[in-house]
């Protein structure tokens, strides 16, 4: 059902190709938005939904490959399918290295494009889901009191309750109370679960920085 809300953005300077692509993609029940240039795409507020970008290389003004780089620089992780009239190998290598899902030479088989779009949307969906989970985790983690956060960090680093109590200078029982409340707030089923959660949070902050 989330399919319904997925959006395919198309940037191609040729109106007839744009229209044809829209017709094809609509026929499999996806939403399509059309843009005639890279600038037009950059200036439009994009809805918050799983999406991917079908991008022509040869564009007036900012080229397709330039747009791909700009989006990466701006931390926009939308999956990109590159289409081109006369693709050479260096160009396709460049596009794929920069993270394109697929590099198709016009005219392409409809199935090839639709497959690539499915892959791209799936990847975007996963990414959005992961981001949502991390956002939830972070929210939960931030709901912990400073002392609970301290205890969680130390538990995750492998310290025993007694060691934590000694280091902070509180009773071991108090550490146990903080620990179980934190587990509850984080919705962690086990210590292993909690460790995984904190690792994901660390991982995402490390990636973002």
């Amino acid at each position, binding site marked *: 059902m989330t399919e319904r809300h997925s959006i395919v953005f198309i940037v191609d300077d040729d109106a007839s190709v744009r229209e*044809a692509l829209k*017709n094809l993609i609509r026929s499999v029940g996806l939403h399509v938005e059309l843009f005639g240039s890279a600038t037009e795409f950059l200036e439009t507020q994009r809805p918050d939904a799983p999406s991917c970008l079908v991008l022509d290389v040869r564009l007036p003004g900012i080229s397709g490959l330039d747009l791909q780089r700009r989006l990466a620089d701006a931390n926009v992780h939308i999956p990109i399918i590159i289409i081109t009239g006369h693709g050479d190998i260096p160009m396709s290598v460049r596009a794929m290295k920069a993270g394109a899902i697929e590099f198709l030479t*016009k005219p392409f088989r*409809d199935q090839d494009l639709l497959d690539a779009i499915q892959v791209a949307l799936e990847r975007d969906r996963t990414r959005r889901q992961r981001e949502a989970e991390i956002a939830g985790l972070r929210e939960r983690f931030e709901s912990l009191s400073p002392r609970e956060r301290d205890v969680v960090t130390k538990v995750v680093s492998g310290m025993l309750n007694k060691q934590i109590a000694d280091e902070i200078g509180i009773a071991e029982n108090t550490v146990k109370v903080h620990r179980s409340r934190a587990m509850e707030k984080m919705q962690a089923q086990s210590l292993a679960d909690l460790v995984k959660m904190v690792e994901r949070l660390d991982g995402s902050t490390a990636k973002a920085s």
Partner: protein
Amino acid sequence: MGIGIWSTHFTAMLAFRLPIPIRYHWPTVLLSLMAGIVSSAFALYIASRKKMGPVRALNSSVIMGIGIAALHYIGMAAMRLAAAMHFDPFIVALAVLFAMGFSLLALLLTFDLREESRGTPLRKILSSLVMGAAILGMHFTGMASASFVPSATPTDLSNVVDIDPLDTLGISTVTLLILVLSVVSSAVDRRFYAQRLQLAWAESKVVLNHTVRVGAMDELTTSLAHEINQPLTAVVTEVSASLRWLALQPPNLDEARSGLARAIRQANRASDVIGRVRALLKKTPPPMRALNVNEVVHEVLVLARNELHGHGVRAKTETTVDVPLVLGDRIQLQQLMLNLIINGIDSMSMVNDRPRELIIKSAPHPDGVLIQVQDTGEGLDPEKAQRIFEPFFTSKPEGIGMGLSISRSIVEAHGGRLWATPHSPHGAIFQFTLQRAGKEK
């Protein structure tokens, strides 16, 4: 032109009246005519040079001026009359300067007009008016410098003619004749100019032909491919989408129908692009004229001289003298032979163990004429021999594979045939037939 100046002088002398009869010593008159012709020839030779700097213009106008002055004074010396002539040196000098000045102006005008092809008739008229003024100015200033003192000495009357019998009519006739001659000569000159222009154009095509391989043509085909590829992409996509609309349960006929309608429009767009290119390539049907292929062969060898020389290729012709005339477009046939010659040169570029030799033969053929271009190059790979005439097939690293394909279409447009055969022990023979002129298809 010399005769023109000369007739100006003597016609003007008719206007000169002295209270005594004037007669002319005819050998001296002839001598003055020679002076006019020689100086004119020299000036024209200068003016026909490819380039003329200010120094050269100055030099030639000095010579032209002296020539006119010489004609004048030799002409004066031919006068036989019962009076002594005296010349004022200052005015004589002025007259010579006059002649030089006007000659310079006329030369510059003429040259300017020749160099750029923007020579309007007005400019031409202006320049000849200036030249005429030079001669007349010189003449009358010259005459002003002369003073006649009656003398009692009997004049030498041997070899003398009276100018009166020639009179206005005679000299006018000569002048008219001169005018006709100069018009004819200018027409001939124009013919030569047109031919030079044509050669220069053909030469630039040789250069183009090579640039074409490197970039320009590449650019053209790329943009052409794009122009055609876009609508084709739209067609393929619209039709695919329509099939998908039809495959739905229940089928969506409206979507399928409008997709197919758009596909038709895009298919037509692609066809329009091709139509435009075709129209561009054959804007006007080539003018077919009866021509001698041997001439074309020799013209093309002149054009390809640098290319042949630069690659150390020796070109020979073995043409049949009384080869029948063929019907063709000279420029296209030049292009065709150039393609074959340049192919031959390219095929021999790696040959170092035997002479690089290109032989062009012409011979009568049942259809008309057979022309062969034979090289000692790498020869034809039997596998590729079948494909060399296909568009975009090439065996050269920089080639785009259009040369032989274009060559074949030129030959076919001329109702002939182009094919290639191996040449033993080395190389290949490219040969084509052209139809005899005056033979109906």
